[in-house]
């Protein structure tokens, strides 16, 4: 889901940078108020986890690859605003050092994976695990459902961003200037592969770690919940 340079025209890249600036500002303000000193290492662990889990490319045999983002898990553990900052750090390093995701598309990629994904995932988790005891299997289920829905919604939005390019930018002869696939191709492709495969990967990763933490140290599962307003 890392949109490279050249797939989005200046309008889309610019708008999504402009959308992310106030989100990053609000995230800093909220995290400043809510993050406790002892949680700073968790912010780093969350960013590092998101970074490395995105390196696990999962193949669709003979087709494309995709990966989990780990962002819903970070949102469950630290709250969605801290997750936004953690995933942004991972995405910026991926773009600058490894060319994974374009630098003109950092706004778009952060909007999809560092904003939409953790927020959708976080609120799905809250809704499904509402009033569930800390050690219940409903929390594990909620984590899985949240991971699945969070990454799938983000993927659909990436598909829309790809898909509007041929409408926005084309030559007089009809050749695309940026992403050549329209909404009718891009949205089903991005939605389909995430609903069928990569959504499950995010679901399993999120649910397994939540299950592990339930046994190991349930206080981790309360930290994110208590902070989010």
């Amino acid at each position: 889901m890392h949109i490279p340079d050249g797939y989005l025209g200046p309008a889309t890249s610019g708008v999504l940078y402009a959308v992310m600036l106030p989100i990053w500002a609000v995230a800093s303000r909220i995290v400043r108020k809510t993050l406790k000193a002892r949680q700073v290492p968790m912010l780093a662990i969350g960013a590092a986890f998101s970074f490395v889990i995105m390196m696990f490319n999962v193949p669709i045999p003979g087709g494309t690859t995709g990966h989990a983002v780990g962002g819903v898990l970070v949102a469950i553990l630290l709250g969605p605003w801290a997750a936004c900052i953690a995933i942004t750090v991972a995405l910026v390093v991926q773009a600058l050092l490894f060319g994974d995701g374009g630098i003109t598309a950092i706004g778009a990629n952060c909007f999809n994976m560092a904003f939409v994904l953790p927020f959708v995932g976080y609120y799905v988790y809250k809704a499904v695990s509402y009033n569930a005891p800390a050690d219940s299997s409903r929390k594990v289920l909620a984590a899985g459902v949240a991971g699945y829905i969070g990454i799938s919604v983000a993927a659909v939005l990436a598909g829309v961003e790809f898909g509007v390019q041929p409408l926005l930018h084309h030559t007089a002869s009809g050749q695309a200037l940026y992403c050549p696939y329209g909404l009718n191709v891009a949205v089903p492709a991005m939605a389909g592969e995430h609903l069928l495969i990569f959504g499950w990967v995010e679901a399993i990763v999120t649910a397994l770690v939540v299950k592990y933490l339930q046994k190991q140290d349930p206080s981790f599962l309360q930290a994110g919940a208590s902070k989010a307003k």
Partner: protein
Amino acid sequence: MKTATKLWIGLGVLILLSPLGLILPEHFKAGAAWGEWGTDEMQKLVGYVPKGLEKLSSLWSAPIPNYAFKGWEEKGLPHLSFAYIMSAVVGIAVVVILALIIGKALIKKGD
């Protein structure tokens, strides 16, 4: 052992396992992610390279492109796996340092 320590160890294990993200797609003959094709693949897919895409695609040259060392593209999977692990180490080191700096800066100003 503290849970945070265990999570750091978990990250180390993920770093060592990361080449799976390289080997499995290779084994199952899976190509690039959707919408992340290079200009050559784009030429094959749609018969031309969109002009704006061509111009912007070379805008940034990353120091470790695609988690591989420059000049190692033709080397075999063991070399690429090594480069992948080193990329994970470098990437995580930078991510952790940045996150700690941001986290500490935010906390300080909050007091």
